[in-house]
Each structure stands twice: as C-alpha cells, then as structure tokens.
C-alpha cells in the first residue's frame, strides 16, 4: 500500500514538472504558433545563475531561487526580442527551426563559457527532506512540486480570467489581428506570454536543480522534449491540454518504471514515446485540442 502511494506521489511530482514546462510551451504556442525548442535553455540559464550565485558565495535560498527565476524570465524576454520577433508572423516551420537554432547556440554558449561537464549546485539540497504525509513516507520536494504546480495553475487561471491582458492572450490564440483591432498592443501580448513562459521555466528549473544537484548544457533538453510530447498529446496550444498531457506523461513514465522488467529499464523512453505517438495517431490534434478550421474564414 505504502509502495503504491509512493509511486502515485512520484507520478504526481513528475507530472507536475512536465506540466509546468508544458504550460510554458503551450502559452507561447497558443498566441504565436511557435514551437519553442529553446525553452530548455531558458531552464538551463536558471541553473547557471545558481552556479554564479554559488561562486559569489551567495547562499541565501531566497536570493538563489529568486535570482534563478528572474534570470529565466529575463532570458525568455530577451529571446522574444532578439530571436523570435523577426519570425513573429512567419509560418510555424520557420519559427520551429529558429527555435532549434537558438537552442543550439545557447547550448554551445554554455559549453564554451562554462563547461561541457556538469557543474554541481548544492544550494537547493535544503528543499529535499523525508516527510510523512498521511502515514506515507515521501520527499518534501515532491510535495513542493505538486503544491507549486497547483498554485501556478490557479494563478494562471485567475490571470487569464481576470486581467485584460489575460483576456487578450486568450483571444489572441484565435484571432490576434482582432485583438490588435481593439487596441491591445501586440508587443505587450507577446512580451507577457514569454514572461509567463519564462516564469514557469524558472520554477521548473528550481525543482529540476533541487533533484539533480548539477547543471550541464543539456539540462533542459530532455525535460522539454518530454514536455513537448505532453503538449502535443494534450492538444497543442490548449493550456488545460498541456496540464493534462504533463500529468499523463508523468503517470505513464512512473508506470513504465514500475511495470517494465528490470532488464528493459533502458527502453523506458522508447516505450513512453511510443505510447505518446499512438495517442497522437488516435487523436491527431491531441486530446483537448482547440478546434481549428482549415480554409478561409467567413
């Protein structure tokens, strides 16, 4: 029983992490159709900020966490200005390839400026201690992750429902031009989308770093790869879909770990991606995809 409860908690924690990243991807995709492959590098920037703080002998956890998140937000906004503005209204393939390029550049900059090898960051170990939750032994980090994700989802919902800019972002996912025609500045909408996306990346970074304890140039690549898959499965551009996809992926991944025999452990990713590919074939537009129509608007 305890084992099952622990695995459920594992699945929730994994799922929460994927959901955070997937939301960050979906929010940008929903307004500009950009599959932002450079999201992983935004996460890595947060990790390297922690390294910098450690080098400066700053170990106050609030400064470290706040700094990493701020760095991720800043990075995300910078990418929007520098790299993605020229391809803002381009077709999705152009945007996707640009993001690929940005991702390669940043990974190599990390490699060149810092190191190709992992750099240890110990300042977040304090987040992780064993706790008993309703008689089950779990990690405090997992609790933090699940709670943070729930809070983020609530916060995001409030933002999208209650603020004018939030409404504009929701509307922009269907008809950006009309949003501009009611006078909302497109630059503000794009900047806000990337800011929220960066904030979510920053939060995800905290949890990834707390678990791994080190950063390397590829820190964000694999999680983002999986988050993409989560987005697609949930329905790209749909925010509830991203959350659903994230948790689904977490569940599948933990199920694979538990159910696959030991000697197939190395094939975990293959099975996860295989299942996801099948979901995509079953519902080509994802489970909760926003309905899009081909052809002309009337």
């Amino acid at each position, binding site marked *: 029983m305890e084992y099952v409860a622990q695995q459920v908690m594992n699945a929730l924690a994994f799922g929460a992490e994927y959901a955070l990243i997937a939301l960050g991807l979906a929010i940008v995709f929903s307004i500009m159709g950009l599959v932002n492959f450079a999201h992983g590098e935004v996460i890595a920037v947060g990790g390297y900020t922690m390294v910098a703080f450690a080098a400066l002998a700053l170990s106050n956890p609030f400064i470290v966490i706040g700094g990493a998140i701020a760095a991720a937000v800043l990075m995300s906004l910078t990418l929007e200005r520098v790299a993605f503005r020229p391809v803002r209204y381009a077709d999705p393939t152009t945007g996707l390839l640009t993001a690929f390029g*940005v991702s*390669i550049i940043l990974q*190599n900059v990390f*490699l060149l400026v810092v190191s*190709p090898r992992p750099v240890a960051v110990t300042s977040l170990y304090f987040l992780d201690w064993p706790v008993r939750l309703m008689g089950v032994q779990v990690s405090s980090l997992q609790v933090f992750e699940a709670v943070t994700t729930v809070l983020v989802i609530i916060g995001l919902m409030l933002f999208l429902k209650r603020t004018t800019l939030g409404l504009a972002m929701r509307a922009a996912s269907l008809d950006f031009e009309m949003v501009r025609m009611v006078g909302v500045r497109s630059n503000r909408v794009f900047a806000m989308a990337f800011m929220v996306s960066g904030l979510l990346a920053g939060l995800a970074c905290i949890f990834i770093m707390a678990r791994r304890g080190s950063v390397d140039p590829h820190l964000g690549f694999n999680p983002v790869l999986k988050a993409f898959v989560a987005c697609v499965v949930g329905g790209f551009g749909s925010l509830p879909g991203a959350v659903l996809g994230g948790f689904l992926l977490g569940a599948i991944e933990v199920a694979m770990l538990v159910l696959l025999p030991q000697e197939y452990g*190395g*094939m975990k990713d*293959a099975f996860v*991606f295989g299942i996801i590919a099948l979901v995509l074939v079953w519902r080509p537009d994802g489970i909760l995809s926003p309905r899009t129509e081909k052809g002309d608007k009337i």
Partner: protein
Amino acid sequence: MILNPSQKRGLVGAAILAAVLIAIGLIVTYFGSRYQLRLVYSAFVNLLVVLAMQVFMGNARLTNLSHSAFMGIGAYVAAICVTPVTVKAISLPDAPWGLNTFSLDPVSSAVLAIVITAVLALIIGLFVVRLTGSGVTIFSLAVLVIVHSVFLYRTDIFKGNQAFFGIPQVFSLTSIVVLSVIVVFLVRLFRESRWGIQLRACADDEVGAAAMGVNIRRLRLIAWVLSAVLLAVAGIAYAFFLGTISARPFYFNHVFLTLAMLILGGMRTVTGAVLGTLLISFGLECVRWLETGPVLLGVDLPEVLGLSGIALGVVIVLTMALRPGGIMGDYEIEDFLLKGQE
C-alpha cells in the same frame, strides 16, 4: 517517356549540379590528402541525407526530424548483414536470431537494408500521413528517440555507443560521387513529376488540392518512403566507407547539422539542398579549424570548444530571420542560366 518542359529543365538543372559534384570528386581524388578525402566523403554522405530530406520536407513542406534514425537503420542492417561471421563472433557474441551466423555479399546486404528500411518507413509513414503540421514534427521526434533507444539498449545487436566494427570497406569516393549524381537526378525528377507537383500544390493549399481530387495522404506516403529509401542508401554508404559505426552519429547532432544544411540552401529546391550542404560542410571545417586554436597571422588563437555549434545555430537563426526560403528560395540552378526560355 515524353518529358514536359519543366522536367526537361529539371534534367538540365540536375546535370549542372551533377557536373559540380563530379568536379569536386575529381579535384579531391587527384589533389586531396587522405584526410581531406574522408572529409569530402562525409560531406557527400550528408548530401545524400539532405537530398533525401528535400524529397519529403521540400515537397510536402512538413518538418521531419527522424531522418537520421532511418539513416541509422539502413546503416545497421547493412552492417549486420555484410560483416563476416568471424568478426561478428567477436563483436556480437550474444546476438539473437542467429544474426551472427550468416553473412551476405555487399550488394545483397544493401538491398536487404533498403527493403527493411522501406518497410519500416511504410509502417511508420501510415501514421505520419494522418498528422499535420506540428503533429508530424513531434511524431517524427518520437520516432527518432525510439529508434535511438533501441540502438542504445539492444547492445547485443547494435553495440550501442560502442563501435560496431569490421564492416568491409567496399565504397570509395568514386562510388559515392556516382551515387550522389544518380540521387540528384532522381530527386529533381521527383520534384518535377506529377506527384511532386501535386504535393507542392497540397502544401500551398491543402483544402483546394483536396477539392481537386488529390489524395494527399497517399502522396505524402510516397514521398516519405522514397525519402527513407534514400536515407538508407546514405546510411549504407556511410557504413561501407568507414567500416565502423555507432549509435551516436544517428541522433540529434546529426539531425541539426543536416537540417541546417537544408534550411540554408533552401528546402524547396534541389539546388538549395546541394548548395546548403556544400556551404555548411566547407564552412564548418573552417570553424572546426578555428576551434582547435590555430596560429593565424602570428596570433595564437585560444581553443574554443562549441564554436562550430554556435556557428551552426547562428546560420539557422539568421537564415530564418532574413531569408526563410533559404538562399535559393524557389529558384533552381537552371533558372539563372535559362532565363527567358519558357
């Protein structure tokens, strides 16, 4: 077979490109060092890959990221078939299904590799063609990850990241130049064929093309499988020259490299694919040389790892920002030479 004007122009264009490739091959054969020959050979392998990508991405205008995986499948199947039993007894002692108890001649191995890759591509393609836009991209990404996991995990068959050695080195630079010339013609003729034209029409206006009675899924499947077959050829050429392969070259780094080549030249045309490959292959060698920290004009440059990666990324980003259609856009090479001869 009677060719229409655009197909005739296609033949002219392909012939010009072929002449360029043959010239490069001749120059390197007679004047190049052994090291340069290897570099040029691998550039030609990448050319085959990029041409194969052009078949699907350039005509169907969908982004496929699994091309390196299909190249890997072709390379591994051929390698497993062609490697002598004596070598396999050492390198693959635990191989299942008696894989280490037989060996074929190079031609049969290549044919078998192409057939197996084609069948796999057909099965995967049946799913791919049901998807659109980002769906294709992500699905192909999943294919790449799955294939790579299998390569890595089944060390008893593929040896994972360790070297799969002992493949007879039956290919020379001449063989791959000949192969490239054939593929250039093939890819160009496909572009100008009825299928190619219909595919491009679908990419421009899917609803309209469907209304005209074009079966988009079937066309995309044809392009997908043809692309995979050419990728298998590239993989075989790779294995048959180097004699050693491993899983690593068939993953993300190679995907990005070849993608950058296709994008820079312009994925819509065959000329673009060739041009992009040549430019990046050459440019990257220059950057790699800088990376090692050479002495340039009396200045001892520092070693900068990662410079080639940055250069590659910058090429992609700048191309997308300034010329999303690549250098060639919609122009083929003969468009510059046969002006006004419509």
